[in-house]
């Protein structure tokens, strides 16, 4: 069983600062962490491997600071990792990102199962997992909450949907995007940390694979983030104090007017 997990670095949500001018996130590489939702994909893969054997490969696209995150994944028990890092990849949208990741996966790895988190906590699109499935032309099940059974060729999974759970049977190779309830991520062990420390994580560039250059990075991205707005939260409430009971109806009228002026009543 060959399992591949694309993971991503995101800003640590507890340290996020927004640029008040542009509304975009000020990214500080030191404060980047592994997308918390990717941990569930890692845990799912590790449990799968413990039951059925196999190998787990982690792949990420991003700056060299992502190497730290890849080592964390190795410390948890994943077998190998590589980083796609090149100026040409920068600024990619979900279309270009899934193209780049899927091309690297197709050209360098064999894969039975590709696992991803439900979405990344920064962009919140949830599109890269399905994008990879589309580029590789393999089936996908999204929002997977449980792996029900596996017979060596097909998986039966439970998808979390609005009405409850939907059971889906899906043949390998396939992509699964998993939700939080699938498994609680483990802590890495000291042995794992030491093993990860000793391992070399190769960096692959645009020359490492035969990419179509016009599909890469910002240039290859059909979509653009035009503007990000931060909603202004204002709480201009009104308190009407009443000292004497006889003033109560007057106060109610005052309050009603306030609501009507704001189209709230």
């Amino acid at each position, binding site marked *: 069983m060959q399992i591949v997990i694309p993971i991503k670095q995101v800003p640590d949500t507890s340290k996020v600062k927004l640029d008040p001018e542009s509304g975009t996130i000020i990214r500080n590489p030191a404060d980047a962490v592994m997308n918390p939702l990717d941990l569930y994909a890692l845990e799912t893969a590790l449990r799968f491997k413990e039951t059925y054997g196999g190998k787990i490969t982690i792949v990420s696209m991003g700056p060299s600071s992502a190497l730290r995150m890849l080592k964390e994944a190795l410390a948890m028990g994943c077998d190998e990792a590589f980083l796609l890092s090149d100026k040409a990849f920068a600024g990619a949208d979900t279309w270009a990102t899934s193209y780049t990741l899927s091309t690297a996966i197709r050209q360098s790895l064999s894969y039975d199962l590709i696992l991803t988190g439900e979405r990344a906590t920064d962009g919140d699109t949830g599109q890269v997992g399905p994008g990879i499935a589309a580029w590789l032309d393999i089936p996908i099940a999204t929002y997977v909450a449980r792996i029900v059974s596996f017979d060596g060729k097909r998986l039966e999974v439970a998808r979390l949907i609005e009405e409850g759970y939907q059971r889906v049977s899906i043949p390998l190779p396939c992509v699964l995007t998993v939700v939080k309830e699938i498994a609680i991520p483990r*802590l890495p062990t000291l042995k794992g940390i030491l093993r990860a420390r000793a391992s070399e994580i190769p960096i692959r560039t645009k020359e490492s694979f035969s990419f179509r250059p016009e599909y890469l990075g910002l240039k290859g991205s059909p979509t653009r983030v035009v503007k990000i707005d931060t909603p202004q939260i204002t709480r201009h409430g009104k308190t009407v104090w009443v000292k004497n009971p006889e003033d109560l109806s007057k106060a109610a009228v005052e309050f009603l007017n306030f609501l009507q002026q704001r189209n709230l009543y």
Partner: protein
Amino acid sequence: MNRTQLQNILEQLRILLGPSGVWVDPEKLEAYSHDETEAKRYGHMPDAVVFPQTTDEVCRIVKLANQYRVPIVPRGAGSGLSGGAIPHQGGIVVSLERMNKLIELDTANMVAVVEAGMVTNDLARIVLEHGLFYAGYPMSLETCTIGGNIAENAGGGKAIKYGVTGRYILGIELVTPTGEAVWLGGKLSKDVTGYDLKSLVIGSEGTLGIVTKAIVKLIGLPTARADLLVLYKSPQDAIEVVPKILTHGVVPTSIEFMDRLSIQTSCRYLNETLPYENAGALLLIEVDGTNPEQVETDLITVGDLCETQGALEVYVAQDKNNMERIWNVRRNIAEAFKVYCPIQSLEDIVVPPSRIPELIPELETLSRQYGIQIPCYGHAGDGNLHATLVKEPSMDLETWKEVEDSCLRKLYTIVARMGGKISGEHGIGIKRKKYFQEIVNPVELELMKALKKAWDPNNIMNPGKVMDVY
């Protein structure tokens, strides 16, 4: 004090503080009738709560209290664990919660001057923005105040490396029990000018005056930290490693011990799934520093030692989420036990760190002897353990009180034999007064009484706490 006297002093307090500064409504007073000790057992309603906003107001309140001979009880956040802020003789609670401002952040001297009602966590957050760190840092960090920390000389989870509150208090403004304001200490690293009265006040549980302001020492912010969660087969195995870690070269910020019962109760309370199933006890060890690589090297050094000392498994938490996950389990043990069984005695014994391994089998013996559970957790690296006597649900209250009393006496005797004391960081208050007076050296007790009498001739400042003076 009769009703008329009370009405008179309240009238004068209202003139001084305004109507919003004096509360007498029983519903509002209820919150000030207890701390984090068992409210039913130790709680007592105050006659009033007052909220001064300046040192001068505190002085005037104390002078009035002397004039009318009304007990006054200083109060921070009420998160104490020995009943120190409970008005157990009634009287007036002086809440410092409206004196919560940062007065000065003096980065040239690496100090902050704060009002005593400032929440410790707020101070930590403010100085953090300047790359600074306030290290006198107790565990109830979300609520407790600097003034309360000073009154108890609070400890907490980082004392091995950083020490306790007292180390970071360079100066205090004190309103004495007779109502005079005085600064003790200052923005000084060294000061042997006369008696060290500042240190005398720190940890005096509000019996020697009301601290209104403090000069706190700040240090450079440790920017990297990481935790180990180490599993051992038995509590004895885990605790025996503690003195070895302490003498191994790396100084961790914390070595926290949790027996299986403690971690299981907390995990169930939090719906958390740490891998403790096969372990009899766990150590939570934290290292910090300013260089991430050095922190990782230290972590590996300590982790290796734990493995060679028979650890079942050594887990590592280097990212914020995982660190928060395991500390959350540690921090919630006391709360979890309250849900499990609200009747208990949370103890705070402290022994020399090297004697810690001897303590665990003694606790197990006591547990068997009295037929009660004694979960044990705490700051093993400081020799400070929160052994907790938990009432069996089937036991009636009368029997429990006898069992508790007898078991505590034995426990305290064992601790004293090891060169330890009955409280490391929670204080004596009213909860441990009886035992303290029995076990303390009589000469020491007389010195304390003489001091209290000299400072507080009318015995109005938190009277009846720590010891009975008369």
